[in-house]
């Protein structure tokens, strides 16, 4: 049999071929490495495309729902969640600057002599903070009004020192290359099987330095009274993303799958002579931070090791084997994340219900 074209394999993946075609395609696939590769590529492409599409869909739904609340029945409101990226995205930006300014997001100092000179932060746990949408919007508005367009590039330099790369490898090889112990759930819902290839993601490293004057000008524009010390000028912070693995579980005879990922926590290294506490203070003192958010953030004691997640509608706090985590469901897409011993785990998939997802997570 001649190799079928990509379109045919796409239809095969989407279960859009007849039973007879399916049969002969399967037989062909058994012996054709080339087509196996094509299938893998198509699947990867789909996996790549789906998250931005899902995000986009929820942005659209928000937009439609917001204005239509008055027009339509109240039960028409779709569920929202952390994946409501329209808002969440702004948060990513805020959170990203939080890493720079305060380390609010993340990371425990390494408890040794080095700590005096060098602070390393690492995610050890997750905590959610409550923010209502209105306040979030107000804050975004305040940013916009006070600053207009801020070109982030003016604020500093960012350089990717080591590019993150990823490859599909057999499980044994992945285990060998991982800096921590590879885990697998012992409970897998009926019909699902782990894909033989596992994606290995390698370390990446980025460095950034701040233009203190510019940052302070921005802070001032925001009405701040606490500023960054001049000593920070030109010093590099670095973010190390650690290695990790993505394993996929496919349901036989359908396209359904869920993914299980495990990553060592990323680390942020603060340059010598910089006191992260000062940075944190500068952010917490920002006048436009809603008061109860400020209180909540300030109340997080081991802030250096805590990842902060805005608790929007639909985000649920859960506990997985004694570790705090979050669960989000959005358009049949379930997503769950928790941290255990410095490793960040996620389980996600379409058409996986909450109970099943939790069961999988607990079995790890």
């Amino acid at each position, binding site marked *: 049999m001649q190799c079928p*074209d*990509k*379109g*045919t*394999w*796409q*239809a095969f993946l*989407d279960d*859009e071929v007849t039973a007879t075609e399916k049969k002969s395609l399967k037989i062909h696939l058994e012996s054709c490495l080339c087509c196996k590769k094509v299938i893998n590529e*198509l699947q990867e*492409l*789909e996996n*790549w*495309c*789906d998250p*931005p*599409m*899902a*995000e*986009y*869909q929820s*942005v*659209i*739904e928000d*937009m*439609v*729902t917001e*204005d*239509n609340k008055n*027009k*339509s*029945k109240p039960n*028409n409101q779709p569920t929202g969640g952390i994946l409501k990226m*329209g808002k969440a*995205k702004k948060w990513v930006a805020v959170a990203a600057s939080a890493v720079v300014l305060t380390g609010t997001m993340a990371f425990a100092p390494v408890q040794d002599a080095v700590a005096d000179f060098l602070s390393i932060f690492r995610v050890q746990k997750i905590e959610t903070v409550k923010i209502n949408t209105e306040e979030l919007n107000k804050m975004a508005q305040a940013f916009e009004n006070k600053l207009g367009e801020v070109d982030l590039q003016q604020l500093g330099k960012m350089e990717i020192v080591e590019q993150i790369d990823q490859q599909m490898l057999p499980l044994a090889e992945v285990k060998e290359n991982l800096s921590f112990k590879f885990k697998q759930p012992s409970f897998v819902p009926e019909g699902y099987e782990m894909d033989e290839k596992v994606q290995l993601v390698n370390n990446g490293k980025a460095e950034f330095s701040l233009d203190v004057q510019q940052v302070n000008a921005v802070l001032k524009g925001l009405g701040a009274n606490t500023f960054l010390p001049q000593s920070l000028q030109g010093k590099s912070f670095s973010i190390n993303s650690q290695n990790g693995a993505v394993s996929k579980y496919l349901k036989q005879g359908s396209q359904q799958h869920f993914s299980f990922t495990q990553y060592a926590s990323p680390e942020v290294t603060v340059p010598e002579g910089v006191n992260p506490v000062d940075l944190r203070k500068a952010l917490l003192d920002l006048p436009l931070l809603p008061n109860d958010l400020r209180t909540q953030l300030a109340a997080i004691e081991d802030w250096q090791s805590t990842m902060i997640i805005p608790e929007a509608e639909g985000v649920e706090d859960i506990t997985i084997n004694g570790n705090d985590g979050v669960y989000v469901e959005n358009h049949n897409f379930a997503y769950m994340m928790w941290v255990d011993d410095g490793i960040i785990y996620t389980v996600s998939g379409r058409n996986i219900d909450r109970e099943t997802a939790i069961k999988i997570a607990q079995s790890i």
Partner: protein
Amino acid sequence: MNFNEIYTENYTKLLRQAAFLLGDKTAAEDMVQEAFIRLNKTGLSTIETPSAWLTRVVNNLCYSYMRSEGSRRRREEKVGRQSVEEHSAEQVVLNKEDKNLTHQALSKLQPRDRMVLLLKFSGYKYHEIASALNINKSSVGTILSRARDRFKKEYQQLGR
């Protein structure tokens, strides 16, 4: 079911679908409005399942809107006029400026590719996609995989 009931039952759902396809709420509202006008004209008695009928019409209207918008823009670019886009398919989803990369990347695709991608994501079957776009069912797979490919490239380009 009378017209009003059909309207309340379907309006939000259709608007969501149209907005998803077009990335523009104002235009989406126009399309949905138009679909209901057509339903009224055609007459309820002749239509078996109004909600399926409406969905089909909305999809068709969105597709032709996309195509005519595309040609309008090309025309305008040809005569060297800057396109006036305060209220068009390119009108932004989020803010004054379009920060949504997905929307930007999608609007760079050909209408047919965009439709296939979005309809597939909405859960449509190949034969439904084929009939909405007036293409062969057998070419849906090919168009879909290419559309994803292009989408990824555009997205990555924009993200740089």
